[in-house]
């Protein structure tokens, strides 16, 4: 199943609905890289609340997506990592060092809004 990507004002939200195969993850990567340009978005939120497993490929792909989107001029926030998943990831050494994470969608949006506000002040 293709991950639905929603446009919400200046942001795009990719809300993962079920466990993803490797192909679907790569598809998500390509879709996001395209949509962030198409919608002129300033931020991307990837919601992984439903995932109860994150293997190394998934983490690597998420990191690749975040890096790619940064190169496209936007910020990525990964939201909704479950406690068990977080613990397992840390034990496997998959800590998503340089990627922003947030508790849930609301927090992710709040973070991006703050970033936007900080940017706006800079322009003034």
């Amino acid at each position, binding site marked *: 199943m293709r991950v639905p990507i929603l446009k919400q004002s200046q942001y795009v939200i990719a809300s993962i609905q079920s466990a993803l195969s490797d192909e679907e993850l790569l598809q998500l990567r390509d879709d996001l890289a395209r949509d962030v340009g198409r919608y002129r978005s300033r931020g991307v939120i990837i919601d992984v609340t439903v995932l109860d497993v994150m293997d190394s490929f998934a983490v690597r792909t998420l990191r690749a997506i975040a890096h790619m989107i940064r190169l496209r001029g936007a910020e990525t926030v990964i*939201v909704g*990592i*479950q*406690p*068990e*998943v*977080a*613990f397992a*990831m*840390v*034990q496997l050494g998959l*800590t*998503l060092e340089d990627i922003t*994470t*947030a*508790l*849930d969608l609301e*927090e992710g949006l709040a973070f991006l809004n703050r970033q936007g506000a900080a940017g706006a002040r800079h322009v003034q």
Partner: protein
Amino acid sequence: MTTDLRSQGTEARPSHADATAALLRELVAHLRKNRTQLREEWARRITESKLLTAMTREEIFAEATSVYDNYVEVLETGSVEALQAYARNLSERIIPRGVETHEVLGIVLLLRDVLARSLFKKYQADFALLNSVLDAYEPAANRIANTVAVGFVQERERIIRQQQEAIRELSTPVLQVRDRLLILPIIGVIDSLRARQLTEQLLRGIRANRAKVVVVDITGVPSVDATVANHLVQTVDASRLMGANVIVTGLSSEIAQTLVTIGVDLSKINAVGDLQGGIEEAERMLGYAVMMPEPPPAEVKA
């Protein structure tokens, strides 16, 4: 024991098994007859060997009497169940008083020796008979020593398990101090099991309370080694994946030195001196400002 010996014997030498049973009966009669004297001899040797120093002379004598009677009963009936129950009961009573395993083993072996000596004395004229008496006596005596020692050790292990359980139940609370701010005071030694439990509790707490900042206070942790430090780093990383910042407080100077010496990578850990400082830092991160209320008028006058 008698039945055991008999059933083993029927396969090979039934007459021998019967002879053993007869000898054990004779043995029991001998031990019953000399009960007072042998029991006193045993209690004397316990005191001489400086065993059971935690107990008074009278207590030793009372326990010695019950053990002696149980001992003879096992020799007679061959059933160790009553002795097992007694050994458990005895262990329950004496373990809290600091009686060690070597003492318990020591007294049982002493009794075995005391009784063997009395057998030597009784049968010294007839060497062949002495041999067969010892053949009957030794396996039974060893089994008794075994039962008592195993009972004692099992009781100790049960107590240890119970205490571990109790420590686990005293698990660390995750407390909310302000909206979106949690504190996790850790007290006592952290082993890998506890560290795992702590991390799980913290992550659940972060989700349940929608926390943004967590202050982990380790003032009450006596020592930190590489394992504990790594658990700490893992907890911090996992919390960050859940979108919460962690502040570690209460790192003593000794712990700081240890961590630097063993070379744990603490670059990712945000450390603040004490719990108060940690909470203040967390409030700053969350945008709280604490203000003193205006002082009451009475104080202004003063």
